[in-house]
């Protein structure tokens, strides 16, 4: 039986990686993927804790996270597409129109 701690560490690690990716990648799509990474890290934490406590709640929450992620992906990607249509780029630091 794997100790909960290691699961937590793993989830933390993936989360951190996701954060790093979001901060350092220029491509919006990849940043988006990094967000998905973070989401999954959290999901992992939920499921691990839930299974440790023997409750279903963790899994239910994961279920919701998935649904929301799906919605988010649909809208987010649509936004990216429309951005690309108007600006011909998906590089985060070229998309700084909303600035001083």
């Amino acid at each position, binding site marked *: *039986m*794997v*100790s909960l*701690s*290691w*699961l*937590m*560490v*793993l989830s*933390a*690690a*993936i989360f951190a*990686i*996701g*954060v*790093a990716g979001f*901060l*350092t*990648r*220029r*491509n919006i*799509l*990849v940043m*988006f*993927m990094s967000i*998905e*990474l973070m989401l*999954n890290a959290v*999901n*992992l934490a939920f*499921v*691990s804790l*839930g*299974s*440790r*406590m*023997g409750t*279903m*709640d963790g*899994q*239910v929450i*994961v*279920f*919701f996270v*998935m*649904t929301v*992620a*799906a*919605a*988010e*992906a*649909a*809208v987010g*990607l*649509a936004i*990216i*597409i*429309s951005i690309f249509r108007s600006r011909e780029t*998906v590089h985060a*630091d070229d998309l700084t129109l909303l600035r001083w």
Partner: protein
Amino acid sequence: MPAGLFWFLAALSVLSALGVVVQRNPVHCLLSLVLTLLAIAVLFIGQDAVVVGFLQAIVYAGAIMVLFLFVIWLLNLPAESRPTGHLALRFFGAVAVAALMAELLVFALPARLQIRAAAHAAGYGSIEALSQTLFSEYLIAFEVTSVLLLVAVIGAVALARRTTAAEMQERGAADKAEIEKAA
């Protein structure tokens, strides 16, 4: 779940996650991400969260990620020439991430995780158990989520659908009217 499996999956997921972050080619990033998702899905199943695990594979890996793939193709993205130009951002980002990681690790210490391990009831993680919970105490949330999905679909269509020439024209006319009004 057997320790060996766990360590394998852990290594796999971390490495592939890194792959998402470091690889230049979006498609490769995507594949690494899919790999991570699958590894995590197996981790779920390994903890008796069978249904959620498979859902993860079906919904996340099977559907959402394909959507990403489509978008990558649609935009015909080239491999990223260079990572972000802001060195400061990268530096501080690295520091901040390290700090966060450290904090989280403190939480993950066994001493901090004093959770009494409870035995899994029969059918734990099965679709029955999930549904029971989902449709009893989380019913409202469930319904709201359905509405959310509907809205998302509509929004996505509204955003991504290409405007027809006629619409373009009338929009242009409207803008011209605006400008003339302003002038």
